[in-house]
């Protein structure tokens, strides 16, 4: 599961930064049928979280009400240089994660 993440490479301490992520995922609703009429099982990313230097700054519980290839945009305060860690898991237990680093100037 690939993802595209956009966060600023650099930020001033205390600045509110914008985090944007798109994860490649079908977000199967569980209400569609395949070619032979069988119901396709629901498979959506149910949990997404973002950790900044080890502590959670954002978490989302998602359902089939979120579009395929889920897009999320949220904010966090730049506190220290370090790493953003993104993690998500779908109904079938498939996990995905991504990392991105940031430099914070005083």
């Amino acid at each position, binding site marked *: 599961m690939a993802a595209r993440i956009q966060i600023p490479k650099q930020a001033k301490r205390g600045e*509110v*930064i914008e985090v944007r992520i798109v994860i490649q995922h079908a*977000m199967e*609703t569980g*209400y*569609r*049928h395949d070619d032979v*009429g069988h119901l396709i099982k629901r498979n959506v990313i149910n949990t997404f979280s973002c950790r*900044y230097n080890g*502590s*959670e*700054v*954002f*978490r*989302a*519980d*998602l*359902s*089939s*009400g*979120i*579009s*395929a290839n*889920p*897009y*999320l*945009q*949220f*904010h*966090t*305060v730049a*506190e220290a240089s370090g790493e953003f860690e993104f993690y998500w898991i779908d109904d079938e237990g498939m996990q995905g994660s991504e990392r991105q680093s940031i430099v914070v100037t005083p």
Partner: protein
Amino acid sequence: MKRRAFLAGVGGAMAVPLLPGAALAQANPVEAQLRTLAQGAPVKKGRVHLELPQLADNGNSVAMKVSVESPMTAADHVKAIHLYSDRNPVTHMATFHLGPRAGKAEVSSRVRLAGSQRVTAVAQMSDGSFWSDTAEVVVTLSACLDES
């Protein structure tokens, strides 16, 4: 029986059973979920801004932005934003958990909408209060429940 009398009789018999069905008011699924969420606390209007287009061509992907008026400090911040739909098969669309480290209570995403409906966003504050906003969306092509 005369043909005219027969047709009138059939037409009348068919019309009658439709009336009780239309009179049955359906309970709003969002209100039921809000009661469970708030546990008796009032859900007030205000402080939350839910932005959705008034008209969406395709219900499979509708841009959504929700923001909450909050200083986002350790003492006073938004704990979570809940999103509900009153016509989707799954009422609870998403919950976004925030904290004082978010700096700004604003989340954007894209949602699926199964038909024209009202979407509700509820913010759960750190002081235990609940605030909400709704948006009416007209969906031209609804998110497919079934591709057949």
